């Protein structure tokens, strides 16, 4: 039975509720000069699911995430969010709408501690004005404490308590990736976008990261769209997969459907040749 044909809410085999469409990409085309990085691609993301975008290097996966988060403006097509077409937006406006992300190359604030980095994830929730902050006592302090509690919960959840006060610049690569996830999670996003969260990690770190991604989705019900290079990891992790190759969508469905898709097999075999 094809799960993806279901248009109503359903419950997965492991008991998570998947809701209706929360984001939809409609006929997105993105060009850089003569290069067509994304060619007329459409797909949807449903509430509560883990949606993967896979494909060989240069397929246009990161570009797609950059379209969603407002860094790139597509020449054609629309991004629908919560049932309405989204007007062109700056990245910070996208973030304020509840879309958080991590980068393929870590983008942390190196001059700050882990705790401060995670606290920056709370900024969209902190509204106290300049004047109240100057006085601090009262509103600003209370807001700081409330948001600190959320940040500390995320820190506990991702098991990085021990490095809370460490400057980020001193951390090894794997931990930095985890701190970046913590910062994105601290925003309590509606959709979490992860660009190759496991790139450059050893097997053990990959297993940890996979577990965290599943836990985040399970515990907070966060919708996750993630890019992964590695087919194997994706198959275990995701509910549905979009496969891209040379800017085109060549497959979309459950991991099993995608695995048996001839175009996908060809694309991956093609890559392993060169």
């Amino acid at each position, binding site marked *: 039975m094809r799960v993806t044909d279901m248009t109503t809410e359903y419950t997965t085999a492991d008991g998570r509720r998947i809701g209706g469409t929360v984001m939809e990409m409609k006929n997105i085309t993105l060009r850089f000069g003569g290069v067509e990085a994304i060619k007329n691609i459409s797909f949807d993301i449903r509430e509560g699911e883990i949606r993967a975008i896979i494909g060989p290097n240069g397929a246009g996966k990161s570009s797609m995430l950059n379209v969603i988060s407002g860094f790139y403006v597509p020449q054609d097509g629309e991004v629908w969010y919560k049932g309405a077409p989204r007007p062109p937006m700056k990245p*910070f406006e996208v973030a304020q709408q509840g879309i958080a992300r991590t980068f393929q190359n870590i983008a942390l*604030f190196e001059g700050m501690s882990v705790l*401060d980095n995670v606290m*920056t994830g709370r*900024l969209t929730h902190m509204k*106290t004005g300049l004047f109240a902050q*100057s006085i601090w006592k009262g509103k600003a302090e209370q807001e*700081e404490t409330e948001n600190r509690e959320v940040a500390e919960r995320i820190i506990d959840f991702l098991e990085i308590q021990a490095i809370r006060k460490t400057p980020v610049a001193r951390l090894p690569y794997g931990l930095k990736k985890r701190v970046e996830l913590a910062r994105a999670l601290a925003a309590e996003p509606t959709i979490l976008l992860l660009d190759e969260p496991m790139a450059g990690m050893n097997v053990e770190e990959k297993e940890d990261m996979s577990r965290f991604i599943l836990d985040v989705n399970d515990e907070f019900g966060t919708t996750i769209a993630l890019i992964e290079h590695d087919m194997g990891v994706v198959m275990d992790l995701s509910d549905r997969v979009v496969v891209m190759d040379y800017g085109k969508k060549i497959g979309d469905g459950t991991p099993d459907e995608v695995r048996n898709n001839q175009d996908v097999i060809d694309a991956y075999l093609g890559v392993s040749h060169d």
Partner: protein
Amino acid sequence: MFYREAGDFNTSYPEDSQTFPIKFDRWRYYAVLFVAIFVIPFLINDYWVNSIFLPFLIYSIAAIGLNILVGYCGQVSLGTGGFMAVGAYACYKLMTSFPDLSMVVHVLLAGGITAGVGVLFGLPSLRIKGFYLAVATLAAQFFLVWLFNRVPWFYNYSASGQISAPERTFLGVNITGSNTDAWATYLFCLFFVILSAYIARNLTRGSVGRKWMAIRDMDIAAEIIGVNPLRAKLTAFAVSSFFVGISGALFFSVYLGAVEVGEAFGITKSFLVLFMIIIGGLGSIFGSFAGAAFLVLLPVALKIIGVDWLGWPTDIVAHLQLVVVGALIIIFLIAEPHGLAQLWRVAKEKLRLWPFPH
């Protein structure tokens, strides 16, 4: 020295994020405040106030202001002198136009006006960064000095082209003009220093401070967590200029009394304050004080040692001062970008663990 945090537990988040989480630090801070308010005013005379205390206090405010922009938000500015001039001329115009208003109001309003001008000159920062922004602020510096020289309205059409502070009192005590007492001008400036440090500390530990630091560390990542870059930069320009404006107002009205703009607020002033925060420590309120103290005391110390003790000619000592400052800037930029403040932190860290370093 007994510097300990043992038995000193912070059991709530507000306690953990306070300015001085270690009790010993807190007490030392209260002690400094007590001495500054209740002891120093009784001991100082005109010489001490004019050669050390007033410049130290006033430059500290300017350094705090510049540090917010450069150290916290990462936007380099060479326009500090020009913005101090805005504060000074705003204060002058306010003092002469509204003679009945309190001096405290004048100085605060001068800060507010400078904040507005700062925002105006901060607008290009959305598009230009680093070196190019520095050049743009340099242009602002020259433009502002030129403006105050050329438009007679700013100096009330005085024949000399200078501005001079009329006599004003606060709580019945003279604080500007020629008949002031050392303790009164000192306390007046101290009030603004405490106010500035308090506000700056609160802003830098909360959400707006994190926005500034996010922009400083990586502007793309700052955007992705929802920071509006233009808003964040412009608030940094506004807050920074507010403090710089206050310091300019005090520098003119309380310290110098009369000002020729090119001389008092020229490009050398911009560099002096920039050097203060580099030597003191970028991104540190304490560093702003340390840097101001250092560069105010250095010429005094060199003069005492060089001229008074060793009998060297004055001009040699003046040159020596330039060499020392230049060398220190290079050393700090290369070896310790976080300045004296970081050296102090490292020393405290060692003391905290002493005598068992592991």
